[in-house]
């Protein structure tokens, strides 16, 4: 099943909605309950780490897409935000949660954080 869904986080209700939608995407993609929890919690943790939903913080644009590597399949969470770069301590908190994390930045004002979670089922 191919997935490519987008949503914008502007407030704390958007974080909650995103969390539930991502879990549903993971479920529909065939991921097990633990993977569903990991990916939905990763969105929650990333949104909070970037300060999304807080007053004065720019919105974050999320994109969830399916990915494949040989027989493995998984989901990629991309988050684009205009604002200060995510800090190294913040990034290190994700290292145990997700299989891969990457930060890309075309300019100092904009960054893209990409989390990858492979299905364990």
């Amino acid at each position, binding site marked *: 099943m191919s997935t490519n869904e987008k949503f914008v986080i502007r407030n*704390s*209700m958007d974080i*909650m909605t995103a*969390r*539930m939608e991502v*879990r*549903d995407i993971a*479920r529909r993609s065939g991921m097990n*309950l*633990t993977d*569903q*929890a*990991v990916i*939905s*919690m990763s969105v*929650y*943790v990333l949104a*909070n780490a970037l300060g999304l939903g807080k007053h004065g913080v720019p919105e974050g644009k999320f994109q969830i897409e399916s990915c494949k590597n040989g027989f493995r399949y998984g989901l990629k969470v991309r988050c684009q935000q205009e604002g200060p770069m995510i800090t190294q301590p913040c990034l290190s*908190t*994700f290292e*145990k*949660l997700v299989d891969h994390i990457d930060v890309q930045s075309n300019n100092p004002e904009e960054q893209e954080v990409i989390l990858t979670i492979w299905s364990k089922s």
Partner: protein
Amino acid sequence: MNYRSSPLTKGKNILLVEDSPTQALGTKAMLEECGLNVVCAINGVMGIRLAYQMIPDVIILDVQMPDINGFEVCQELKSDPETEKIPIIMLTRQDTPEAFQQGIEVGAIDFIPKDAFAMVVLRETLRQMGIIEEPLTAEDKE
């Protein structure tokens, strides 16, 4: 009482382990509104005992409790073949990635922060797990 041999009603059985009476009442009311049968335990020891008696369909487990915490309860139940398959959802104020990771490591299948949306997220998680039946659509009713 042996809950396993005498299910109270047709709905799924939930064991709620929560030491705060106020929070337990609120969560219980929400779950019962969804058609679930809820039994409450007020601490970890009671939670483990009831889990063996009931073998519930899901355990909803608070993390911070005075005697043994939710991580320990989860670890205990996951280490016994009789209870290892019961899905455990943790509810907590500790919404750090480290706490979440710990929850996953001891075998919880979700970790819901106790924020303003906790009940909405819990209900949706139970719906996605098939514990709460989805409302019938007009198409289903025909």
